[in-house]
């Protein structure tokens, strides 16, 4: 069990700025905290060992702590809806998880006094609940149940004066033999009293102050009208304009898709807020398929998909605020918190990583390092709380070994309210398309060992990148750290002055702004060291208003753990076409010379020198390395070529002057060709039988005097530390870095 965890309010902080940390203490009343530098987060006894030196700061000390929880689940809240006495409600619904009981569709309800009304689903049957504050709560249920993933019109009328009610359900499409249409009229003996509080969609305020009873599914065109009305006119979409003078509110989700606002088309302008980022840009009941972009036909995208397991902001108050000194050195750091001894039964410490970036405004007269590490924080966010080892039963087949769980994974299992990565599906089976960093990110930390991380150290993403931090420290390389979010916001000017940029082991997710900035830098003479594989793979988008959240649309093709529905390939955050960068016309080969070809998570393989290794242009790379076979060792799977591999492909944009220095071989049968590399399923997809499965260690010069050194393997960094950093992978990498740091142009 994990007894302490938390998150920072940002992943990147500049000198002189402040960063806060939000902590949940699961045991005891106090915890110790200090800042550490992160130089190696891997405790594998086969490697150099943990290197997390204390960085003395004003943070050092003991703090009070308490248990904190995230209130997961998305909903709409609208203030100012008047207390409702004689009214009707209607909405179009597409429910997705009817097995979950007590899902509320609409509510104006005082949780303390049980006053007001709410409309809920009782195993798919609409149920109207009213309360008058005396404790008398009445329910009337329609005996007809909805089916999942089918569009319905649901409406009710209620007159508190007389107690008369009507609840009605009609499907958009009748299916033979299915009784999912019906109506019930009656009279409440005690019809409840109106509540003056906010109006909610897809959730119910609970006595403890949280919002619960979340509806899973799409809601479209919800509306409140004065007075009673029959169902048929309320089922029409759009609502007839003859209702205009009776409108209390009519929310149009097709407006403001890029925002968190739910526009009220009624005259009272009771605009709603969408909380915890339910999915927008979702097909509505009237989607015809003529247009696939919500920008082309917004009226056909008037649905919002709510989930009980959406989370944007965990909302924990700050426990520690660190005001950085003006001269804080750029690098990888973590807040180390501890509440006791860690033993087999519990982990009582946690490392919360962050990066100190260079100052936002260049200080005249201060020379920055010419080397930078671009921390792939978008990829760290994409994988935040990755839970497929929990939810995808049978994924052990793909891993080739038993699924590794640590204390942090057990915590994740027990706390689904921390919600998901971009790899997961919601409880209702729909894909998770938004991931926020404003919540604990359990697997992005030193000391986290991942079920995905290859036999051996089992590291992935953040903690795998600490192998590179250790290597850079060992060789005394001075460098700045900047993050993806910095690059997205600041663009090319952020990196213009760096001669060399190193990537992490797996820089997979990029926004258009990030992509453009990096390409500009390479084309203007930059020297890129691509220290991983599967880079520049998926397009992501940032939100216009909310910081720290990214969106992916897993559209056609690519290795994907869920599929976006046809018609939902366009980002709600930006309107851009989503999916693989390759399918957007920018294969990774255009950026770094090579592109994704295979993945496998059990064991890794060596490279064999290729004829181009002896090309005089590459002589500097192999200086001091005579070996025919390189990287037949490594902490990630026992070899330098593993996890995910990239190779040369001129048809995808590998430049004509690229040198293939070495290629990997002897792959496991579980190193599988990726699906975008075949259009018809082949019988020989594994690395033991498919000649296309390989990583290509590559190099090329660019016309502006720069160059690209590309390893083509996520596992490469895991070979750097072997034998005390004395090995051929380390030597090759150092040779490349030293030459790249020499400003002399390549051409």
């Amino acid at each position: 069990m994990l007894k302490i965890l938390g998150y920072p309010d940002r992943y990147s902080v500049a000198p002189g700025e402040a960063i806060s940390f939000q902590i949940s203490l699961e045991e005891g009343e106090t915890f110790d905290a200090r800042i550490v530098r992160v130089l190696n987060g891997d405790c594998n006894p086969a490697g150099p060992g943990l290197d997390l030196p204390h960085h003395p700061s004003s943070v050092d000390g003991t703090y009070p702590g308490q248990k904190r929880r995230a209130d997961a689940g998305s909903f709409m809240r609208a203030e100012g809806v008047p207390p409702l006495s004689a009214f009707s409600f209607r909405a179009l619904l597409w429910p997705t998880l009817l097995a979950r009981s007590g899902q509320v569709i609409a509510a104006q309800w005082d949780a303390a006094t049980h006053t007001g009304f709410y409309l809920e689903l009782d195993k798919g049957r609409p149920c109207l609940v009213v309360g008058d504050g005396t404790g008398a709560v009445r329910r009337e249920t329609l005996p007809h149940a909805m089916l999942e993933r089918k569009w319905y019109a649901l409406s009710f009328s209620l007159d508190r004066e007389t107690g008369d009610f009507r609840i009605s359900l009609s499907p958009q499409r009748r299916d033979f033999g299915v009784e999912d249409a019906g109506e019930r009229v009656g009279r409440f003996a005690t019809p409840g009293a109106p509540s003056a509080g906010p109006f909610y969609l897809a959730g119910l305020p609970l006595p403890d102050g949280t919002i619960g009873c979340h509806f899973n599914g799409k809601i479209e065109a919800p509306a409140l009208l004065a007075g009673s009305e029959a169902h048929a006119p309320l089922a029409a979409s759009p609502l007839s304009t003859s209702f205009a003078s009776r409108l209390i509110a009519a929310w149009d989700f097709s407006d403001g898709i890029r925002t968190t606002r739910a526009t009220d088309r009624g005259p009272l302008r009771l605009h709603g807020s969408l909380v915890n980022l339910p999915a927008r840009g979702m097909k509505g009941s009237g989607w015809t398929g003529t247009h696939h972009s919500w920008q082309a036909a917004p009226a056909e995208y008037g649905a919002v998909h709510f989930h009980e397991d959406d989370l944007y902001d965990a909302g924990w108050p700050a426990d520690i605020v660190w005001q950085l000194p003006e001269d804080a050195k750029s690098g990888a750091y973590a807040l180390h918190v501890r509440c006791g001894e860690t033993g087999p039964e519990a982990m009582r410490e946690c490392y919360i990583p962050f990066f100190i970036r260079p100052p936002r405004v260049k200080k005249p007269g201060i020379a920055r390092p010419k080397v930078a590490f671009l921390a792939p924080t978008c990829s760290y966010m994409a994988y935040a709380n990755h839970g497929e080892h929990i939810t995808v039963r049978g994924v052990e087949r793909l891993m080739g070994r038993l699924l590794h769980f640590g204390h942090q994974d057990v915590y994740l299992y027990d706390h689904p309210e921390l919600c998901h990565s971009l790899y997961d599906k919601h409880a209702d089976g729909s894909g998770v398309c938004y991931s926020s960093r404003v919540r604990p990110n359990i697997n992005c930390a030193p000391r986290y060992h991942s079920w995905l991380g290859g036999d051996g150290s089992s590291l992935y993403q953040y903690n795998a990148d600490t192998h590179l931090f250790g290597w850079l420290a060992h060789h005394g390389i001075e460098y700045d750290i900047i993050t993806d979010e910095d690059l997205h916001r600041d663009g090319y000017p952020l990196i213009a002055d760096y001669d060399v940029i190193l990537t992490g082991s797996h820089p997979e997710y990029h926004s258009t702004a990030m992509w453009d900035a990096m390409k500009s830098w390479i084309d203007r003479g930059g020297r890129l060291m691509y220290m991983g594989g599967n880079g520049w793979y998926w397009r992501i988008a940032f939100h216009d208003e909310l910081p720290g959240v990214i969106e992916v649309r897993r559209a056609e093709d690519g290795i994907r753990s869920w599929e976006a529905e046809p018609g939902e390939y366009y980002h709600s955050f930006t309107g851009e076409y989503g999916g693989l960068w390759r399918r957007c016309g920018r294969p990774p080969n255009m950026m770094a010379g090579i592109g994704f070809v295979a993945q496998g998570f059990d064991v890794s393989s060596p490279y064999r020198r290729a004829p181009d290794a002896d090309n005089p242009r590459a002589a500097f790379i192999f200086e001091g390395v005579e070996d025919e076979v390189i990287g037949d060792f490594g902490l990630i799977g026992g070899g330098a070529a593993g996890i995910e591999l990239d190779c040369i492909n001129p048809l995808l944009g590998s430049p004509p002057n690229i040198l293939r220095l070495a290629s990997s071989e002897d792959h496991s049968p579980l190193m599988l060709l990726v699906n975008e590399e075949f259009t018809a399923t082949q019988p020989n997809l594994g690395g033991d039988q498919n000649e296309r499965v390989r990583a290509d260690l590559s190099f090329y010069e660019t016309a502006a005097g720069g160059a690209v050194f590309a390893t083509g393997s996520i596992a490469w960094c895991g070979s750097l530390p072997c034998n005390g950093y004395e090995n051929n992978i380390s030597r090759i990498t150092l040779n490349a870095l030293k030459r790249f740091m020499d400003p002399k142009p390549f051409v």
Partner: protein
Amino acid sequence: MYRINPDTDMPFVEEFRRQPVGRHSPGLMRILNTLRYDPSGRQIVLFCRKPFAEWQIAEMPANRQQPLVFEDSPIFTNRDEAEWEVFRRRWFAATGQHLNQPFRSADEA
């Protein structure tokens, strides 16, 4: 779906016992893909209670909302030994045959 034959598939048992994690032959891959599928929805996992030192077998119930179930005993001090134990149990469930070899015999150790 492939039906394991405890007689003709025995060489793959020995291959697995020699190296539970690694480049496996197609025949062993087929056995493992068969054994690693549990139609009940339950999933065995390996809980590492002390990094690189101690492991326990645990199981996720088919219903995600129910808690993990940990086996208090045995505590493995060798990851591959845990792999062999799970393999043995799955082999028995699939074939009714007990694999009574230890992970490493006294000679092999």
